[in-house]
């Protein structure tokens, strides 16, 4: 059997059969299951394709499995409080956990606790990264959603507490779910709330783009990858599909079932707590408090399969299948470090144990050059000029130019290598 491209990962609150399990998105057959404990809502995450992290329901630790060793709990990370939500950055470098009102940020390479962000007034209910790990969005029961810039949070600057770059405060009841679209800092983010609305925001400006009012509280929300549709899981068990390319003129839409894409998936009998769309946008996965996970065909809105769980479904997500998952004898490339529980590693006493060294950007030496806009612009120019040359330039000229450029690349590579060697020398010098 060839390894599947995508898999479904789901967990429930009872944890009788398994803590979390991996299913085939097309047939619903179970591939693997990971045992031990259970996982609280919105706190199951895959780190770097090598580990599965899940926060224990009602307890103050995080269960960790190596993704190929399904039966054995690798580690329990003990946290300062009950973990309400958990998220690993897509690049596998950082882990965020919402613990009561605060957000804890760990660095995966060292296990250091880099920051404790306490800008929420009540429990954090959901944290999501953008796909390029540059920003993250946190939503809480205090009706606020905050957009943070990761680099500004990580900055080593003790005098200044990190500030969110945007505060989204238009919801009037607790935020239940957040979904970040693609495209990094230019992504759109959708927030669902008990106030019966789903709002779509722009990450870069914090502007609200769209607000859809439903007649039930919304417990979960997701986009398809093209952002043609917004899927909203209601507290009455319906899943609403809002078409984002309709031609309605008003900003505040009231949800109504009509023929042009605003349609309802009916089947669940209780709160729809998790939603996820497959890579190609044809399959929709939903998990509900009625203890089932259902897979839907987006086009026809039919339920393809459903799996019964033993408790409320707390997490259900379609993820690209990690490479290690089906190779029983593989090993994670990076061992999981001990997670520190204190902000300052020196206070811990055994800070010298790892022998590692922590590199963090100071505030003044932030090495970022241009605004993303300008980079885009320049790329665009480049593309344009390259296109011009390849279309209009004569062959001879192009060849000369190519060889010149190759030369250039070579020199640059050499310089880069020298620089690397120099700096490693400097860093690894004894004393």
């Amino acid at each position: 059997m060839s390894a599947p491209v995508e898999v479904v990962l789901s967990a429930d609150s009872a944890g009788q059969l398994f803590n979390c399990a991996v299913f085939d998105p097309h047939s619903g057959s179970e591939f693997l299951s990971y045992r031990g404990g259970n996982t609280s809502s919105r706190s199951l995450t895959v780190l770097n394709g090598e580990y599965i992290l899940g926060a224990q329901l009602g307890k103050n630790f995080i269960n960790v499995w190596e993704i190929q060793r399904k039966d054995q709990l690798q580690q329990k990370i003990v946290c300062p409080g009950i973990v309400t939500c958990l998220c690993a950055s897509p690049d596998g470098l950082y882990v965020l956990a919402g613990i009561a009102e605060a957000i804890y940020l760990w660095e995966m390479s060292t296990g250091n606790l880099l920051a404790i962000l306490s800008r929420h007034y009540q429990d954090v209910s959901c944290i999501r990264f953008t796909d390029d790990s540059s920003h993250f969005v946190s939503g809480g029961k205090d009706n606020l959603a905050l957009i943070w810039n990761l680099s500004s949070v990580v900055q080593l600057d003790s005098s200044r507490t990190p500030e969110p770059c945007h505060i989204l405060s238009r919801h009037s009841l607790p935020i239940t779910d957040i979904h970040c679209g693609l495209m990094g800092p230019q992504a759109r983010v959708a927030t669902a709330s008990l106030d019966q609305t789903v709002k779509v925001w722009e990450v870069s400006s914090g502007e609200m783009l769209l607000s859809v009012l439903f007649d039930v509280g919304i417990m979960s929300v997701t986009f398809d990858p093209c952002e043609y549709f917004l899927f909203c899981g209601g507290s009455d068990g319906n899943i609403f599909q809002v078409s984002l390319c309709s031609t309605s003129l008003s900003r505040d839409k009231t949800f109504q079932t009509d023929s042009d894409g605003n349609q309802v998936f009916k089947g669940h009998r209780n709160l729809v707590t998790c939603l996820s769309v497959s890579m190609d946008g044809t399959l929709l996965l939903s998990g509900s408090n009625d203890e089932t996970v259902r897979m839907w065909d987006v086009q026809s809105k039919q339920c393809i399969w459903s799996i019964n769980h033993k408790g409320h479904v707390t997490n259900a997500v379609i993820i690209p299948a990690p490479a290690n998952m089906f190779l029983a004898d593989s090993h994670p490339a990076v061992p999981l470090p001990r997670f520190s529980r204190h902000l300052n590693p020196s206070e811990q006493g055994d800070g010298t144990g790892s022998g590692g060294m922590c590199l963090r950007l100071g505030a003044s030496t932030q090495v970022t050059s241009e605004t993303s806009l300008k980079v885009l612009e320049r790329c665009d120019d480049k593309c344009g000029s390259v296109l011009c040359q390849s279309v209009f330039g004569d062959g001879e000229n192009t060849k000369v130019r190519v060889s010149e450029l190759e030369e250039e690349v070579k020199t640059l590579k050499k310089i880069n290598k020298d620089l690397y060697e120099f700096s490693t020398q400097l860093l690894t010098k004894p004393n």
Partner: protein
Amino acid sequence: MKTKKQKRQGDFQKIQLKVGKKKPKADNATNVNFRSKAIHLPEQLKHADSGPTTHRQLDIKDLLSKLHHINSNIKQGALVGLRELLSAQPTLIELHASAVLSEVAALFTDKDGSVRAAAVRLLRFIAQCISAERVAPFFPLLSAHLTCAMTHISEAIQEDALRVLDVLLEHYPGLLSQRHTVLLTNFLELISQKRKAGTGQDKSGKGGFALTISTNRSVTAQQWRLTVLLRLGSFLQAVVEERPLEEGVTSMIGLGMWAGEKGSVTSVDVSWEEHVFGKGRIQVFENSGAVPTPHSTYRLRPDSKAVAGMNKELCSAETVQGFAGTLVPLMLEIWVEAAGGDRVQTDSGHLLSAEAMALMFQILTILQLLRRLTPQRDQQDILDAWFRNSYLTDFKHHFMKNFPYGLLEVARHRKKADGKRIRQQQVATGTVAGGNVEPLALNVTLCQVMVTLSLRGQDHVEAEDADWLGTIRVFIRETLSNGGKLSSKHLAALLEVVWRMIVTQRSRVVTDDLLQAVYVQYQQRNLAVSVRTLLLHFFSQLYIQEHQNHPHIARSRILARWLASLPVQLVQLCSRNPQLSAQLLETIHPAAARGNKDLLQSLQKNACSIYDPQEGSVVVLPVESQKRLVQILHFLPTFPAELLACLSQVCNTGRVSASLATMLIRTIHLRSPLSGWSSSSQDVPVKDVDYLSFFFTTLTGFSSEMLQALQDTDEDGLMPSSTLSPLSVFTTTLEQFLHHWDVVEEVCHCLDTLGSRAQCFDVIQNAIIKNLCGLVVVPDCVCAAILRCVPRLLDVNFLPSDTLLHFLSDCCLSMLSLLLQLEQSARKRDAVWEACFAAMSTVPRLLRLVLQSLHVGDLCEEELPVLAQILSLLLQHTQLRNHMMANASLLQHIIQDLTHFYGGETREQWLTDLLYCYSVTLSGHRANMGMRDIY
């Protein structure tokens, strides 16, 4: 020959002129003895048919031509005539606007005062009639003449130019503010003159101006300066207000003052909407994906370059600095003259004459306006810093020396002989300054100006500023807490100062000190609504915006006390002022969402009064506030039983809409641990017992007392019990029924999603048996609700008790007969039918019970048709068909009885219908054998 010679002599006789003799008159001398008189034609004789004319029969062409007349009386007459003509025929203004305006403008610089006055009067009249857009093409001309007049060598003309300016400011502030480059220098030149380059005195840099003093004006130099500064102030005001509004910056005087403190997050999205939706199709996402919104603050690195394109608009810090650099020294000079020239003694230096006070007030107003000229926040900061660097010492020295200024009681010090002069002076000042200035206004404005100079949160600067900020603080505290009532304008200014000081000084002592003073003001009774709103707004903004950034504000006791008092105020306010209540809620909601302990405690304490079903805020306020109140419920720490009782009644009394009631029910549901949503929190907001009793009470819609009371009444709405309707049904109004129906729907849904259905149903069954089964009189909505919820909640494996089923069958029968007997609306009928059928099809035993209870023998003649109708309805229902089939023998028996007992000769329609239905239903199954038995 001789004769000839003589003759010649005779022709040319020489007249001897002698000294002392009178010179004879020459023959050809003109006799000037006649007297002439001018023919004066004030009016034309002809009745011109060419157009409208004045009462002197002059048409507009004549009048315009007379404006060029050399005689000033004629010019004035023509101006008066024009005014008369134009007021009689307003259409003429539009037609001749260009000619009239250009001619009138030319007269701004006329030598004669009366002509100028008439010209101004005419201009004022015209300005009232023509809108700004229509004047815009002529405005360059007007302003050129205005400039000409303002810079005129004659001082009288300069004075009158200010009157023209007044008119234009009043009617065309927008147009005028575009001309600021020229006008601002004109203003300067009105009160000063350029220093000569060689004098070497001008330390203030380029273009050093010196105040001019001219002796031959009709007013004193001070008064003249006051008039000029007044105009300058209103001109700057126009510039500030007429600027196209920028995002996130409000230039409202009163309440917008805190908007500037908001920081970088602006959530205004109006212009974005315009950008996108202006192009027709919605393409929200496509556009914003390719091009980030213009308000995107996302930068990898902040722009270090200054704003490109130093436009000559007056909004960059540099231009304002340039102008202020010349103006401020002048104003300081004026201040010194006003302060020192008036009183020499140092002990009463704070007492000022009314005139000086007006002058000072004007100076401070202009300083304030100068700061507001820059719309962008960063520019404003630059400007503040510049002011601080350049003028702080001067300001401190001059302004703060005698700081709390008071009004000098002039009349007491002067002699009686002077009295008349003073009165004259006051009249003059009054007309010029437009009213006297209160000392409070002066002091408050001074505070405002000075406080903007204080810098944020740097410790060394703080100490530096401590002395003068301390004085200001004392003044503010005393003004606010001395119990006097302040007008909303002064209060707004004071609050702005308080805000700024709290934010900049970052000290808890200062914060509490100032807030205490504001709170004293807030606690006064009988405040005007505007003042109350202002104070409320101040506190709520302070809490919402600055709370997080400034721990010293967050820890303030006063703020906590204020928050805790909000729910009480809400209760007290009731429905008297919905706007104020809405504003209170606007603060309570976020504070509750943030879990503010003080507020939540107080809210918990007052919850029962707020959510009282009779006169609580939740029922008396408008819909928006009701919605907020329901949302606030979400954050309440616990729901005691009394509160739930209140809420249950709120849901059912119909004073909140059905959608809001469902929202309320959902909130309670979500807060309960039974719903499985609220995660691991240890404390339980809604106890399970309370939860279930809340839902049951809401389901029935009537409290036990009400039901009990209903048993004893004998109202008209009551249907007596009979064999066909075992319960006597109390019909509720349609409105109440439908409202309750919606509520029941939601209750069923919530109960449906509870974990264990069997247990849940058991509880509900017990509750029904205990509370409802013994009743004789039952409201119809209760029947419908029970019939609706039982089939929805019933678990397949659970056997409902007989008591319940008997009660249900009674309900069912009663409702069916009720529907058939009374005229009901379609919606109600559908709802009840649906409920009955659903109940009977889910619980087959119920159907059997219903059929069993139909004793045809006990019925009277009139009831037979009703019974037949019920039966045919049951037969027609497809879902029931199988169950009817199962009870075929019972059914057959009933129908036989029915035909038997019906003694009528003719077969009625209803019987035919019934028999037809019966045959159709059973035909497939039993091949008509039943029919044969009947006949």
